[in-house]
């Protein structure tokens, strides 16, 4: 396959940045999107140019490191697929593909397609954990969890924190991410003692980071590589309302 790739190039946080067009030749339809960028980078390096910076780690769709806007869609055209698991066979020979970084004031661009997602870390630090004594692992049946709750908590826990929800949201809101984390812990017995404080603190942290408010449009769920369901946001809203009413 021969393609034209228009990539956002930005040398650093203070650079203004621009789209630059590159021709990429002889790409296998079985290559992943990131492998296509690898091929482009090899050529750029051989030519003495600066390679395109992008985040990636496991390339198995489970780490949440990769992610870019491909033709204006977070993680590209395939549903429930991370950028590393997107294959070039979903594009046609001769296509022009636009590649941009996530856009959000809370996710400033570091270089090219790499953004700083530490705002998500700050939301997790605000309450996305349980306080438990460390030591040997407790017996698996020490705390019984109903199967339905375990399944629902697991579904929420599949969020890999890639940031696609924020990138796709017309309001730049991180509600789906926060909702997934709050639901994951709130559905399990271990998450109950800190449940109220968690939701209040995590919402405060996301507001402080400069994310927008949710208007329930559902863009986030559409692009989420893990298919985190939109209704978890309703759960987050309820948890928040209950917690805000309870004196702490």
């Amino acid at each position, binding site marked *: 396959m021969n393609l034209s790739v*228009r990539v*956002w190039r930005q040398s650093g946080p203070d650079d203004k940045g621009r*789209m630059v067009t590159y021709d990429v030749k002889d790409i296998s339809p079985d290559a992943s999107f990131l492998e296509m960028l690898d091929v482009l980078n090899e050529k750029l390096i051989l030519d003495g140019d600066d390679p395109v910076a992008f985040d990636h780690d496991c390339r198995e769709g489970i780490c949440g490191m990769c992610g870019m*806007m491909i*033709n*204006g*869609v977070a993680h590209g055209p395939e549903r429930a697929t991370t950028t590393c698991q997107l294959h070039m066979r979903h594009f046609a020979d001769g296509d022009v593909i*636009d590649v*941009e970084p996530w*856009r*959000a*004031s*809370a996710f400033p661009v570091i270089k090219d397609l790499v953004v700083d997602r530490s705002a998500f870390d700050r939301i997790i630090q605000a309450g996305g954990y349980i306080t438990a004594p460390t030591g040997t692992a407790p017996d698996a049946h020490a705390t019984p969890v109903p199967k339905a709750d375990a399944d629902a908590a697991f579904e929420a826990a599949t969020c890999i924190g890639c940031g696609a929800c924020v990138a*796709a949201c*017309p*309001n*730049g*809101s991180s509600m789906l991410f926060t909702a997934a984390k709050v639901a994951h812990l709130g559905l399990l017995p271990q998450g109950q003692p800190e449940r109220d404080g968690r939701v209040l603190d995590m*919402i405060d942290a996301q*507001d402080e980071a*400069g*994310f*927008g*408010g*949710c*208007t*329930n*449009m*559902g*863009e986030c769920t*559409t692009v989420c590589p893990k298919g985190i*369901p*939109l*209704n*978890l*946001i*309703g*759960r987050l*809203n*309820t948890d*928040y*309302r209950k917690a*805000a009413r309870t004196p702490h």
Partner: protein
Amino acid sequence: MALKLLMAVSGLLLVLFLFAHMAGNLKIFLGATSFDHYAHWLRQLGAPLLPDTWYLWIQRTVLTVAVLAHIAAATVLARRARAARPVRYVHRPKVQGSYAARTMRWGGVIILLFVIYHILDLTTGTLNPNSDPQHPYANVVADFAPARWYVTLFYTLSIVAVGFHLRHGLFSAARTLGQQTARGERIARGAALALALVLVVGYLSVPFAVLTGLVS
């Protein structure tokens, strides 16, 4: 989060009013006497506990506060959303949310302009061709006369805008107030669409009845 709760609660209050207002409008099909009697009764509502028109003014105050709160919260949230994405995407296809969801903000502005016109038209009578406070039935008929097709057109567009606004707004309010199951989401979306349709049909039946001569 508090702002969104404010939007949901103030919005629902306004929807309640819309249903009461529609029920009153439909009295036009019972004839001039019935409709005018209803309009005069509104002024005496709350009597003998409250003096004449007091109830009406209390309701107007509550509704005005709700509208202002709704607009203020929406403005703050819209500005926050704008600030959350300072650099726009170069390539951005139309977002996949429904047309109703995408037009909430500008749709709201259209509705506000309509409400101002509507009050000047049929409450104060300033812009009404008949403007006889004793005979609201005649005012309505004069308003939607075929020669004044542009009034009917603007009215229709505004009511459709209300319909779209509520189609997403009612669902969104339910979600903000805690609707949280997938099944409930389907029900909430269906109910929002049904209620919005009932309001649109109810409100549009009046001008079109005048236009077609059913009410004259």
